[in-house]
């Protein structure tokens, strides 16, 4: 690991001030991804600003006037605490399931909610500093394009980068229409819709998201929804546990009897960001919740897929996972084992 200065503070604005003074400084939250990447020499900050003492950990109802309109989750709260908060388990079980689908108990005890959003791809070529990688070193090329790309994207990739974004939590947040609340260097808050937070690679795969240097994630806000009992997070992976997704699907159905008022569907493991399945959602709106309709929606969603040499299987797997997630959501068993 390269030398770095270790700085800490218990105050958000002073943390931001420290960061903007040094373009090579990084915030340190849980460190589960950053420290690993520093050991691999992929990340090379010369200063770490430890956020471990900042008081941005609370989970609390989001209130407008006298009305509870959603929930706010502290940016520096731990993943374990978010997943297990009674309000989240009851009203946002989709988020609980997605967080618990990721990593291991030890890592969830360390990882923060804001940090989870900022984790970087696990593309093996990104991790291997002997390999060209546009995300790690812009302009050097994409090794995965001609390499082993079984784990890689089928949607939204560019010639510059075919990596996928690894978070499970963010896939649920996408289906839940969450927003990311950040503090800017000026001290004012900026609210970024989760769909605008992460980016497709385009010509700048080195940028994973639209956060600027000096912006700090203070909270994740989730509006109320009407599908807590009819939601599901399904993750397909090479091992039963503790592995990244080949394909995952977060689904929520707002129902009136057997009829779908609206569907929220997002996919993980298929793109450079959580992939919102808008084609499928549009097809399902107003339709009966039948397996035939679920299949039609899944087929439509996967029509735009552009598979690579080694990941054609993700198209069939994606269809089946969408259908299965919708079935589980409809039956009300999606938040059960």
């Amino acid at each position: 690991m390269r030398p770095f200065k270790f700085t800490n503070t218990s105050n958000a604005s002073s943390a931001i001030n420290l960061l903007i003074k040094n373009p090579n400084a990084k915030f340190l939250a849980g460190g589960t991804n950053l420290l690993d990447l520093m050991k691999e020499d992929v990340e090379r900050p010369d200063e770490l600003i430890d956020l471990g003492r900042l008081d941005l950990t609370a989970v609390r109802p989001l209130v407008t006037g006298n009305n509870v309109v959603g929930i706010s989750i502290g940016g520096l709260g731990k993943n374990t605490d978010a997943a297990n908060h009674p309000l989240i388990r009851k009203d946002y079980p989709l988020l609980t399931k997605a967080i618990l689908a990721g990593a291991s108990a030890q890592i969830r005890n360390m990882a923060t909610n804001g940090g989870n959003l900022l984790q970087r791809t696990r593309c093996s070529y990104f991790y291997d500093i002997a390999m060209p990688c546009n995300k790690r070193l812009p302009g050097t090329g994409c090794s995965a394009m001609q390499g082993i790309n079984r784990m890689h994207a089928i949607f939204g990739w560019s010639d510059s980068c075919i990596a996928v974004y690894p978070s499970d939590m963010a896939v649920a947040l996408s289906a839940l229409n969450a927003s990311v609340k950040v503090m800017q260097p000026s001290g004012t808050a900026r609210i970024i819709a989760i769909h605008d937070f992460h980016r497709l690679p385009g010509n700048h795969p080195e940028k994973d998201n639209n956060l600027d240097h000096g912006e700090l994630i203070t909270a994740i806000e989730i509006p109320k929804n009407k599908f807590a009992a009819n939601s599901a997070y399904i993750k397909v992976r090479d091992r039963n546990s503790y592995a990244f997704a080949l394909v995952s699907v977060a689904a929520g159905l707002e129902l009136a009897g057997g009829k779908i008022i609206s569907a929220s569907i997002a996919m993980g493991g298929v793109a450079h960001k959580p992939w919102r399945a808008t084609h499928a959602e549009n097809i399902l709106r107003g339709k009966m919740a039948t397996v035939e309709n679920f299949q039609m929606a899944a087929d439509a969603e996967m029509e735009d897929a552009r598979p690579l040499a080694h990941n054609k299987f993700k198209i069939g797997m994606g269809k089946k996972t969408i259908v299965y997630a919708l079935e589980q959501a409809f039956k009300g068993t999606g938040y059960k084992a």
Partner: protein
Amino acid sequence: MNENKTKLTEEEKKLFGDLMPEELDEIISSGLNRRHFMKLMGLASAGLLASHLIGAEQLFARSAEIGDIADLAPAAIENGINVSFKVNNTAKKVLIDSRATLLDTLRERLDLTGSKKGCDHGQCGACTVIVDGKRVLSCLTLAATCEGKSVITIEGLAKDNELNPMQAAFLKHDGFQCGFCTPGQICSAVALMKEAKEGQASFVTADVRQNQQSVILSDEEIAERMSGNICRCGAYPNIVAAIKEAQTGKNVEQTWLFAG
């Protein structure tokens, strides 16, 4: 050989005199070695050692002591950080390089080599320790972030001469083969008991919308919740049996299943 390493107390002499009289002279003259340890483990698995075991464990730990390492002068470290924290309920103050992980600090600076460096990348769980009551990976924790915290390692689980029930259950059920992952497995399992008591959910929890205290963990729950600890010897059925027994306090028969 440092004389301190091999000098036995009267109590320890009695222990080895009882357990392996033919080895006593050798232990006194040249210290403990791996062969003695293997013999002890053989006695342990035959159930002949329970009451003596802790004394023996402590003696082995003592035999590995390498004396105090003189701290480096502050000027010798470019990004030196002074960290004060508790390790196994003892206050420690160390000057570290900002890059030092908690794992390396425990092993290299505090002589607590129980926590193991397996992958050093957060994938195997061998370095699991308990920080402020929660299991974490010491290889992905900077020691500099541990200021004021309380760290419990495998060396801190026993109370005086009494094993932690999880340690005893791992011994009884042979929850290991080579033993390299065992300190991490046991620390992880000890913290898991608290998580289950608090009613924390896992990905395989029957219904995450129901909050439930004091969850009794099924085999499937234990497997999911322990998935961050890899055992390449594959002692998993024994580990699951040990955790079940430690949790319920009841005798548990080991169940063998082929991976589904």
